[in-house]
């Protein structure tokens, strides 16, 4: 698995991908175990992100248009 950092939505999509791979029933036992580990890890990460109670509002001012 590549160590690319996924955003929340990508993690959720990968989670769903894992589910359909497992439900397909074509997995070897080793592959199923690996997918299980990855799935649990992803779902924990997603839950952690949703637990963030701090809401962030950034106000920026319109910049002067110096270039097109």
């Amino acid at each position: 698995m590549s160590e690319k950092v996924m955003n929340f939505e990508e993690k959720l999509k990968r989670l769903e991908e894992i589910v359909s791979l497992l439900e397909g029933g074509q997995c070897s036992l080793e592959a199923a175990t690996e997918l299980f580990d990855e799935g649990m890890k992803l779902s924990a990460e997603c839950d952690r992100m949703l637990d963030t109670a701090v809401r962030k509002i950034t106000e920026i001012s319109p910049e002067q248009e110096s270039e097109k």
Partner: protein
Amino acid sequence: MIAMDKFVFTVSELNRYVRSVLESDRNLSSLFVSGEITDFTDHYRSGHLYFSLGDGQAKIKCVMFKSAAAWLKFRPKNGMKVICRGRASVYERDGSYQFYCEDMQPDGVGALAVAFEQLKAKLEREGLFDSAKKRPLPEIPERVGVITSDTGAAVRDIFSVSERRFPMAEIVFCPALVQGVDAPESLIKALRTLYRERPDVIIIGRGGGSAEDLSVFNDEALARTVAASPVPVVSAVGHETDFTICDFAADLRAPTPSAAAELVFPDVSQIEDRIAELRRQIRFSVRRCVDDRLVRLSALKGRDVLKYPARYFELKIQQTDTLSTRLKRSYADCVNAAAAEFKSAVIKLNALSPLGVILRGYAVVRHNGDIVTSASAVSAGDKINVTVGDGSINCTVDSTEVRVNE
């Protein structure tokens, strides 16, 4: 300046004079006139517009030169009510008094509506509103851009909806003017600023207002900027029923800023449920995967070959014994057969043996080493040797007698 002491003027001189009188009048050199357009012609080859403005009681001829007409945001038509800015003067060549129009705006709701329809049709023809260009909103936006007035209910509504539904998204708020002549430019600047920030989605809009307030969002340059956005844009101009040009240019239209926030921010509890469900499905699938293999393993372990492995050997032992026995038997048979053959051969040999004959009383007679088979082979006085069963006898022939066979 024409000398006024000449009392017979040429027409040119007269017209020139009238023109200078009109043009020196401050009031006439820049004023606004409202009226309805009639007798409209635009000479496409020249690009200049010729028409009349009237108020039902009086008319004035008007011309709008191509350089000014090019800036028009709508196409003037007969029957349209407009307000024109320009100057009144005289066209010297034919002495016609006319109004030189430098700018024109639609006047009144009807006129505004026509201008709206014209702009909408124009941008639609250019493909700005194509549904193929519309992008879906991200399901789970992590950064949301917001452009609206920093006073008023719109911004508060958006913040409170986002807090309720999805507080973990970051909001990047760029305030802008949402009414008045400076509003479109302010909104465009805000959009360009946010485009550099690259949020996942942008909400642009304002709360309810008069038709004039909301017409800010019918600005052509603003609509083009919205259409050129690198991220999905939700247009939220507080109209329940009517649409603005921005609404068409955006990827999605919401009737109000609150509604836009509801569309943009997902419900976090739904997402949590979804994650929990996915986790459940993973556990279930893996358990089924394992159980499936357990069942197969059990079934295999139940087979005799694995359960009673000794039996397999017993079979082999039995097979070996059987073969062993057969081997021994057939070997014995061979030996016996050979022995029997040998015995019969011996008997045949014995039967043919002369020794047996001799034992029965017959004797072998030799004379000078040769076997005597006939009585005529010897004569009286010959020395002969007679071999019997247990030895030999040396004899002398007394007489011989040959038997005569009939």
